[in-house]
């Protein structure tokens, strides 16, 4: 099936795509057919910068288990670091 449902989020960071590094401003998460992964449905994550055009995109297609493991790993990594260390609010504080 095509679920079409898409979670959109504003992002702040950087990613390396086919044409090099770019600033990431937007993200999308959806469960649907993958483009490349050999599975009928995957959790698809796009990190994009629409202002730089459609090619400013990093695409990830994960199994449900892998996606949940990624969420868990992100949470563990953040929990292990001092609170606010990677926060956008910390940019000026670190100067």
């Amino acid at each position, binding site marked *: 099936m095509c679920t079409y449902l898409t979670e959109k989020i504003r992002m702040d960071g950087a990613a390396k795509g086919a044409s090099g590094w770019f600033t990431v401003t937007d993200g999308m998460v959806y469960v649907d057919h993958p483009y490349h992964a050999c599975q009928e449905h995957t959790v698809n994550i796009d990190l994009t910068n629409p202002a730089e055009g*459609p*090619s400013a995109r990093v*695409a990830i297609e994960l199994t449900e288990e892998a996606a949940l493991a990624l969420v868990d790993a992100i949470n563990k990594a953040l929990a292990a670091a001092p609170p606010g260390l990677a926060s956008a609010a910390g940019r000026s504080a670190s100067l």
Partner: protein
Amino acid sequence: MTDAMWAGTVAVTGHEGAELEAYAARPLGSSPHGGVVVIHHMPGYDEATKEIVRSFAAHGYAAICPNLYSREGAGVSPDDQAAAARAKGGVPDEQLVGDVAGAAAYLKGLEHANGKIGVIGYCSGGRQTFLAACSLRIDAAVDCYGAFVVTAPPADFPLTAEPLISRAADLSCPLLGLFGADDKFPSPEEVDVLAAELDKLGKEHEFHVFPDAGHGFFATDRPNYRPAAAVEGWKKVFGFFGRHLAA
């Protein structure tokens, strides 16, 4: 009689004069041939869809698949175009109709065209095939597992896809529907509803629901590929177009 073909990228004029990239294939022989517009699935204008276009040419048709996501930029890879189009809510119905009309006009302008046009689409392209057949004067249409023709999508559905069944009275040509018994979008129940509506309206149609097949059973590059359904399905397609697109 020759089985040689030409295939490659061409430009066609789509909705509101937009220039679209398209992939076309046609026999090199000089006998008259019908035209087939192929509507790609939601993941976009990919290699598997181009193979479908060549399959039609190998069977004696001039075929073309317009890249419905061409507006996302030239030189952008098809998967990035598909993601960008999705983020914008997909292809508006009106735009789709204009793009299919442009692709059909391209086929009708070819030297050996017999003037007949069929449309076939897969997944979201199945719904769009029904839309095109209710909006344009064409000669045959094949809906391969198109969802949201009968029922509305979920409430938080971000794309511009409304049910089309209320437009069934405008269906301009015979319709072949190929569906999977295990599919949920569309479910066999939805297929039955559409068949009943077309019966009521006296619209010529032929529906097949293949056992042990779900959504996307024609897609040879995906795990849902079901050879038995796909082989039988292709036979139905060529039989149907053979009856309705002959000169």
